């Protein structure tokens, strides 16, 4: 008699324990559902593929550099190093660039001129938005009113004046030069900028974007201030 009671209790307790732990599992680690549809997944896949090919091309460039070093190490390591320094300077914008590209002119809108409104300066937010838009379309070099944009360029409001690299930019009209890798890229950039909604944002501020025709050759000036190094340190000579 007593034995069957114990067995019954054991079975019931087994079920209770199982239910308790299942409940615990469910409450503690709620299952997060993947709610992406096939297009969202495809888009993410496309993004990853793009990243993959970008990384591959970067690897190729680096391998070329290694090859160059290996070839030149016996002859003249200085040339190879100078080559690399030049390449790095070109990449971050410390060198003049002569490449295909296009020029954008920021003008006061016709309406504001007719009405006779005071021409306001371009706001830093709007300029940042335009630069982001341009960079999204893979620009190689950008120059705003003669000031080259590099990785550390600051676009901000200083005492009510919009500045780029701590230098004030003129009231409209002024030019923005965009350099691209190829003429085809410049044409693509022209079409993308024409199609983008950035012009409407300028219109709100009584400004107008005039996007110039793509050109085969355009010179963009170098960044003329010193680049502050945060992490790199110069090694004393001879070491």
């Amino acid at each position, binding site marked *: 008699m007593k034995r*069957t*009671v*114990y*067995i*019954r*209790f*054991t*079975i*019931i*307790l*087994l*079920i*209770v*324990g*199982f*239910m*308790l*732990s*299942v*409940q*615990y*599992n*469910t*409450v503690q*680690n*709620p*299952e997060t559902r993947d709610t992406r549809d096939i297009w969202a997944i495809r888009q993410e896949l496309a993004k990853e593929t793009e990243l993959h090919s970008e990384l591959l091309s970067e690897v190729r460039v680096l391998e070329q550099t290694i090859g160059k070093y290996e070839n030149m190490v016996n002859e003249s390591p200085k040339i190879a190093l100078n080559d690399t320094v030049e390449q790095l300077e070109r990449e971050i914008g410390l060198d003049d660039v002569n490449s295909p590209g296009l020029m954008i002119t920021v003008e006061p809108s016709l309406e504001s001129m007719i009405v006779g409104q005071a021409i306001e300066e371009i706001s830093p937010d709007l300029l940042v938005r335009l630069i982001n838009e341009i960079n999204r379309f893979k620009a190689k070099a950008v120059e705003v009113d003669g000031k080259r944009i590099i990785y550390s360029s600051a676009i901000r409001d200083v005492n009510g004046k919009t500045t780029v690299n701590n230098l004030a930019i003129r009231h409209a009209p002024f030019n923005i030069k965009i350099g691209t890798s190829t003429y085809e890229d410049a044409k693509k950039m022209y079409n993308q900028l024409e199609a983008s909604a950035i012009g409407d944002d300028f219109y709100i501020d009584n400004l107008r974007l005039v996007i110039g025709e793509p050109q085969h050759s355009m010179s963009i000036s170098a960044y003329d201030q010193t680049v502050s190094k945060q992490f790199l340190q110069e090694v004393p000579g001879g070491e």
Partner: protein
Amino acid sequence: MWLPLLGLILGISLGLLTDIQIPKIYESYLSIAVLAALDTLFGGIRAQLQHVYDDKVFVSGFFFNIALAAALAFLGVHLGVDLYLAAIFAFGVRLFQNIAVIRRILLTKWSERKNA
């Protein structure tokens, strides 16, 4: 005494190791079923201590209570009334009563043994 405890530990480890999860919408059903099971369990222990334990009542009560609680919760969901609260209330009150009775019986037994 150790056999039921072993069953409980076995059940918990089985559930934790298999890592079974139930969909969110059935969570309330399981919680109420757990409560019903605990209620029946303590009812059974009380009956055993009071020497009125019946196998059939215990086992049928276990499954019937769980089914009833789940059915009440189901009905509540479809009527838009939180009927599962009624079941939680009923089971909760009974759980406390059962545990109180078990405590008293054990205390009486303990004091009897001490006096003897």
